């Protein structure tokens, strides 16, 4: 099966703009809110959103990166341990409104691990989830996004690939067969 483009650069930009406005609608000037990008792939989305929100006049925007490797529920169920990524949270989340940011929501297991992991940095007032792509009908846990860029129907043998201008040279989201990754 060939690569199928779901969102091209123009449509992706519209979606990102909408997500920014939804965040501003809910969080105003972000005085008590923090953005947490889930490593590894939520980081690029989180950084892009911060850039866009800054251009809309939101100046106070704490951003952290959270790695969930040590909190996963599949340790010892894989052939080899996963290599952890950097966690970089320079603030406490105690009493804050936390927004988790990830590019693709699939089984929900990463978000479950993130819910555990964030408590190492304090007890948040509440936690919301923003995902750029939601893969419908594939959740293994009762986890749903508060802010969703786009929903897609895909089967397990497929993969959703999110590309960023900063890293891959273009903004684009596509579905590809798993074998070709």
């Amino acid at each position, binding site marked *: 099966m060939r690569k199928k483009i779901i969102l091209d650069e123009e449509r992706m930009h519209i979606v990102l703009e909408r997500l920014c406005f939804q965040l501003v609608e809910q969080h105003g000037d972000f005085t008590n809110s923090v953005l947490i990008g889930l490593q590894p792939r939520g980081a690029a989305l989180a950084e892009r959103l911060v850039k866009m929100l800054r251009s809309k006049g939101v100046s106070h925007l704490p951003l952290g990166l959270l*790695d969930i490797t*040590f909190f996963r529920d599949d340790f*010892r169920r894989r052939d080899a*341990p996963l*290599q952890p990524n950097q*966690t970089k949270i320079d603030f406490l989340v105690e009493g804050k409104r936390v927004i988790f940011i990830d590019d693709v929501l699939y089984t929900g297991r990463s978000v479950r691990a993130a819910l555990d992991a964030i408590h*190492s940095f304090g007890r948040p007032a509440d936690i919301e989830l923003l995902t750029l792509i939601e893969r419908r009908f594939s959740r293994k846990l009762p986890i749903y996004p508060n802010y969703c860029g786009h929903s897609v129907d895909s089967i397990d043998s497929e993969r959703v690939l999110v590309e960023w201008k900063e890293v891959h040279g273009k903004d684009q989201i596509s579905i590809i067969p798993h074998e070709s990754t």
Partner: protein
Amino acid sequence: MSQLSTDHLLGIKDLTPEDIQLIFKTADQFKEVINRPIKKVPSLRDITIANLFFENSTRTKLSFELAEKRLSADVLNFSASGSSLSKGETLIDTANNILAMKVDMIVMRHPNPGAAEFLSRRVKATIINAGDGTHEHPTQALLDAFSIRERLGDLSGKKVAVVGDILHSRVALSNVFCLQKAGAEVMLCGPRTLMPLHAESLGVKVSYRLEEALEWCDVANMLRVQKERMDKGYFPSIREYAMQYGLTMKKLKAASRDIVIMHPGPINRGVEITSEVADSDYSIILNQVENGVAIRMAVLYLLANT
């Protein structure tokens, strides 16, 4: 996804340079974890680890135990005193009895060289060597190299002098293997009586003068003088050793560049190193202790999956 090339950690000799870099990269993240407000992660929550210490230890035992607890493992502690060893039980029987209680990993310190390797061939558990006689002490070498990497940025091309009782030191041997595999140059320095024969065959430089070693090195790892071995007459007196091989601020300042000072502990203040040096900004002794927990967490995490 990456994995160590070995199922046990018996010595640095068995590790590849890639293994060492993988342990360092993993330890970087664990170092971040142990500096969080809540320092515990659930990775090893379904794993039981037995710490078998057939020889005295404070630092290594506490460090392993803390690393295990920070990873949420269940921990059993065993020390030789007050055990059935005095009733004549063999090492394999002791280990198998503990394993019958469904233990997954064994961390062992033993006075006999090769004890960890011996056990790894005979019992079904992952073995981590926490020091076997005068042979190896792999986690100490890893944390030493990790601490140098942290202070100097990189190990490749760095010159490290290991000073003191080389003959009896498992730390020295593991340090040589580890530093060489990480790309550093090593010099061994100590009295002739405490230098193994053919030390050069390890591919290291050998010096019998501390001043010469200090002039050469970027890092000096000052080993402990093992006072318990003094009765065998390896050197005339502690005072004479301190004069010849003790690191003082005067000797340190006489070297042409700033040297990073390390010590695996426990320190004999005023013998191999003066308090003035040990407590100075040149010293990274307490960083070594902190990094020890991160390194041991990384080793346990990477081996628990096998």
